[in-house]
């Protein structure tokens, strides 16, 4: 009756290895081991871990409420190269297919060919893009796009922003300004702000989520590049502690490579 895996160093280290190699991080791994150390065997420990992880992911949600008479504005933020621009194209395609009148805003006015990149997607999808010149204030482009979306009764406006490190105070302030300027038009804007996190990144995803969330309210996470071999476990401490739901998963470079996040499937992929 007093059989417990706590006495079995091999089982404990096997469980630790799975979680640590999945980028869970030391903190939450230790908490989870502590939680299951009195399990009678490895299998029941894993079952308990899986239901715990699923419950974390299911404990937060984002209720999307489409407004009448004004566009639904979604802002995409995140560090450099994670997949913001590509994710916008994917979401634009699927929302347009669902009958929405979609518009894009090219608010990355800094990086080489960022505007051209979004323009190519807008042409392929036949959705309009509001843009400005390189070096111009991204907030002014967002403002112009929102006004145009309202005037021409667009259902949805997707805002692409420049990649920025959360450690760069000026760039974080620039992002805050985009949100602030939108609020001036309508206190609801933007109704949704998504942070894109790269699944192959380690513990720094936690710092990214923390710092971005302390700058502007985050509605949810898009977990990109899960088609690689990384497990994306850094989202567990993020969802548990910051209470930001994972809404989408990106599984490739094509326009259709995006799915609604499925907590059960995700946890199964880590403990198959």
């Amino acid at each position, binding site marked *: 009756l007093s059989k417990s895996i706590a006495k079995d160093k091999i089982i404990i280290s096997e469980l630790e*290895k799975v979680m*640590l*190699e*999945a*980028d869970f*991080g*030391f903190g939450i791994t230790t908490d989870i081991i502590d939680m299951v150390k009195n399990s009678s065997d490895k299998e029941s420990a894993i079952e308990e871990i899986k239901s715990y992880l699923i419950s974390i992911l299911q404990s937060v949600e984002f209720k999307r409420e489409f407004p009448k008479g004004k566009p639904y504005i979604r802002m995409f933020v995140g*560090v*450099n*190269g*994670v*997949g913001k621009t590509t994710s916008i194209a994917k979401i634009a395609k699927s929302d347009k297919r669902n009958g929405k009148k979609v518009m894009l805003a090219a608010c990355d006015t*800094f*990086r*080489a*060919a*960022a505007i*051209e*990149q979004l*323009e*190519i*997607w807008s042409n392929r999808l036949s959705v309009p893009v509001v843009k400005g010149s390189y070096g111009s204030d991204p907030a002014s482009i967002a403002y112009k796009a929102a006004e145009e979306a309202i005037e021409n009764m667009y259902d949805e406006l997707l805002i692409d922003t420049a*990649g920025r*490190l*959360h*450690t*760069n105070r000026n760039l974080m302030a620039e992002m805050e300004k985009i949100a602030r300027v939108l609020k001036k038009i309508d206190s609801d804007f933007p109704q949704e702000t998504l942070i894109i996190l*790269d699944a*192959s*990144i*380690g*513990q*720094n995803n936690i*710092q990214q989520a923390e710092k971005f969330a302390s700058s502007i309210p985050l509605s949810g996470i898009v977990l990109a*590049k899960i*088609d*690689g*071999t*990384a*497990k994306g476990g*850094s989202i567990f401490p993020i969802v548990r502690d910051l209470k930001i739901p994972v809404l989408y998963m990106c599984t490739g*470079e094509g326009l259709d490579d995006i799915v609604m996040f499925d907590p059960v499937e995700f946890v199964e992929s880590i403990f198959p």
Partner: protein
Amino acid sequence: NIQSNLSKIFRKLRSKGRLTEDDLNQGFDEIKRVLLEADVNYEVVNKFIEDVRERALGQEILFSLNPGQMVVKIVYEELVDILGKAKKEIFFKGNPAIIMLLGLQGSGKTTTAGKLAVLLKKKNRKCILVPADTRRPGAVEQLKQIAEQANVGFYEPDTDDPLEIARKAPKVAYINSYDTVIIDTQGRLHVDDKLMKELKQMIKIAKPSEKLFVADGMTGQDAVNIADRFNNDLDITGVILTKLDGDARGGAALSIYSVTGKPIKLIGVGEKITDMEQFYPDRIASRILG
């Protein structure tokens, strides 16, 4: 600084004067935590700790007057020592010398092409940037704008076949008296067999003297799988670690070097074309140790 950070770990041990082997093991567990939190790969951490443990016991730490201090010193030195072996210069062979940038999507290859050109210009090399990524929307235009910023040559592709570009560009470079060709390639997953095969073919055609694996400095545990695959498939000649201007600890540096044995030649520290630095093992070691 790391000496004081690690010293915290051993402060409680120091007050004991002499360490028991148990105390030492506790200290090493703490170091394991520090390295894991720095994104060093799990297996790499275990191997590193074993090596350090051997050194520590070999140096009769348990009988020293200041064991905590000594262990801190050994851990730091061991890390600097390992990473130090990873430091090497860019290698040029052939006229023109061909440098190829490869790696995962979004790691910073295209941006790095410009930074590399600016760095090599200072060494009097005449560089031309070659856009072999014809698939990502705007990639050719992106490299073109970067070439303008860097004020270096740009190869205007007349095909969207990356292999044809790799074949033609060196000849055009030679005719126009460029001595260095920097080929930017499409981001690809290490598990994408088709694209990895394409890269192998491109290497056969262009015969680069440098095959530089450009990796995101914030990469987590998967760094070993990614680097191992790129190295085994393509026999990379070096690594460039990017985005180290953030607060990622950079444990990927130790992971990647441990699994490939290939040198880390440069690091990216920002988005500007001048934001590239030499790889300093002691600085990265301090950063990893927090």
